[in-house]
């Protein structure tokens, strides 16, 4: 008899079960409530104390007092951006965990974020005024190349790779890529400070243009992700089984990869590589909603990811009040223990 194990929520453990609709409803409502509250808080909390009501009126009723301007130009983009980035990273994580059948896969673990970040830094060093679409494109290319390298080299396509090997490979390559990124920074003194802040990951200095840059990617990404949902469900039964049921495994993987890289790359281009969100949110959703059905998981992860990052951003303001701290630090501090919890539930092998 094998050593008894206590599993964590397994990706692809069984056919998607009927979700208790009420659980999903509760989660959705809670997230929306939290989002609204968080939105208001995000608008009002800052070095310039602005009340809840004043903030909301600034957004919806216009006006040109200094407070209104602060809200609209600085805090509103920040709040919106954190929501979008949260959604992007989370959905990226869901898809990655789905196509690699690996519960510890995520864009940051497998090097996609690091790759995107490296190319962005390189681009900014060469063209300091670059922004918007070209920057996103660069980020996507970087993320795609590195992510592909990791997946290929860790043998994700050929037979069974141990999950741990994939994670270790991804982390090591990410470390390599980050060294390169740091090299760019070291040899370009004038870019050091802000680039570094960005490198840690933060929506702290979001601009309105960032929001507009990211939005299309979020929308298109979500649509594409939902289109993949049924294939992802099938993949959860195991590759062979999925093929037997008519799933086009390779195509799903490629399309999934495209969505991941697109959503993650765009998010990194505007907010830097934010860690752990893509890893952790899908697990929370799967656990709370008690489902493996991607039609439910994808939108819920987007919703929950937005909420989490919005609140993480609020939290980041308190780390060293009144100074800004990168949001990426908060997600790391919260995400790491979570990942550790996941790791503890991994099966013990020999």
């Amino acid at each position, binding site marked *: 008899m094998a050593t008894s194990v206590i599993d964590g929520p397994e990706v692809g453990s069984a056919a998607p079960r009927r979700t208790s609709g009420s659980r999903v409803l509760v989660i959705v409502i809670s997230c929306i409530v939290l989002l609204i509250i968080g939105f208001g808080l995000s608008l009002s909390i800052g070095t310039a104390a602005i009340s809840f009501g004043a903030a909301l009126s600034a957004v919806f009723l216009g006006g040109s007092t200094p407070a209104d301007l602060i809200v609209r130009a600085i805090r509103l983009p920040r709040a919106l951006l954190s929501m979008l980035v949260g959604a992007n990273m989370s959905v990226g994580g869901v898809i990655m965990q789905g196509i690699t059948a690996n519960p510890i896969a995520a864009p940051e673990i497998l090097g996609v974020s690091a790759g995107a970040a490296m190319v962005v830094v390189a681009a900014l060093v060469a063209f300091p005024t670059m922004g918007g679409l070209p920057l996103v494109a660069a980020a996507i290319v970087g993320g795609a190349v590195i992510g592909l390298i990791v997946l290929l080299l860790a043998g994700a396509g050929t*037979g069974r*790779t141990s999950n741990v090997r994939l994670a270790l490979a991804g*982390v*090591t390559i990410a470390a390599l890529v980050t060294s390169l990124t740091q090299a760019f920074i070291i040899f370009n003194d004038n870019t050091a400070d802000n680039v570094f802040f960005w490198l840690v990951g933060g929506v702290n200095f979001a601009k309105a243009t960032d929001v507009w840059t990211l939005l299309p990617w979020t929308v298109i990404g979500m649509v594409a992700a939902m289109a993949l949902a049924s294939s992802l469900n099938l993949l959860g039964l195991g590759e062979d089984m999925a093929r037997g049921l008519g799933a086009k495994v390779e195509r799903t993987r490629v399309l999934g990869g495209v969505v991941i890289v697109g959503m993650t790359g765009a998010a990194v281009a505007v907010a830097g590589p934010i860690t752990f969100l893509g890893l952790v949110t899908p697990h929370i959703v799967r656990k709370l909603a008690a489902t493996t059905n991607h039609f439910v998981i994808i939108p819920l992860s987007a919703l929950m990811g937005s909420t989490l990052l919005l609140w993480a951003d609020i939290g980041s303001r308190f780390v060293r009040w009144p100074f800004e701290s990168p949001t990426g630090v908060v997600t*790391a501090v919260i995400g790491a223990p979570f990942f550790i919890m996941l790791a503890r539930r991994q099966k013990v092998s020999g």
Partner: protein
Amino acid sequence: MTTTTPRRSTAAALDSADARRSTRHWTVPLVLVAISLVLSVVTLGIGTAGIGVGDAVGMLVGATDPGKTHIMLQFLSPRVILCWLVGIGLAVSGSVLQGVIRNPLAAPDIIGITKGAGVGAMLMLLWFPMAPTGAIPVAAFVGGLLAALLVYVFAYRRGTSPVRLALVGIAVSALCEAIIRLLIVRNPPDVNAALIWLTGSLFGRSMSDVWQFLPWVVVLVPLIVLYARRLDVLGLGDDLAAGLGEPVERTRRLVLLLAVALASASVAVAGTVGFIGLIAPHIARSLVGGRHLALLPSSAAVGVTLMLVSDAIGRGLIPPTEIPVGLVTAFIGGPYFLYLLAKLARSTTSGR
């Protein structure tokens, strides 16, 4: 099929087999050491204006201008010695970790030790800038130790499984990374210096650094070598190792402690130099096999060679600018690691 009386021939044959195998275990490290010695001398002549390789060689026979000799001995030789020590430290530490975690991708940089040491050193630098330089290695050691402790504690659940150790290590490493970056962000004027230290550099190291680090290596490495065979037994799997009389958890704990101490001390003196701990054991393994008695010395020798080569390249590529040695190891180590991964992926047996 079988006889019950021991055949003399088999026992005798075992003797000669042992002898034959051992030769490679000696020749490989010796050759590497010889190469490293030559490199050590040559590298003294690289990268400093006005001093060339000829001067370095000439110094051995006393044929060089005393001024140049002084520069080489005073400023460059500590770096060379540190290359030796750090190379040994990181390589041996990496070998041990890969054996304990039973995963060829494990390394001190990956499972949180180097990052933890980095946090320790940075905190010391930032909070107590007036402290003597001797305090920094201690702080780094404490940081690395704490990180390793965190990893161990969180990975412990009726014993630590190699899988859990690796995964928890990744998480703790990421956590430390975030803290380090936060610390750097708080101190913009020092970003560059901090980054350079983080990447791993031997710039400005002096003999006092050497004396600080030397005891760690001299004490810890032989201790680890004493455990060589027991590390082999651990590699057979926890159950069989216990069946062979190895107190598995206790041995693992002790050996991890030694490896952590060694890696942390290396970080304290040279910053977080990456990839040596990952790659040196691999190269050594492909040359002399996986038995630790052979692996550890060869791994150390490879580590030394890699450090010397990297340092030479770092100083000699675009003089007088110095590329931090950690960056060079990343550039050398990175592609090699990718090649390793590709090889692993291609092997049909899914090793764990």
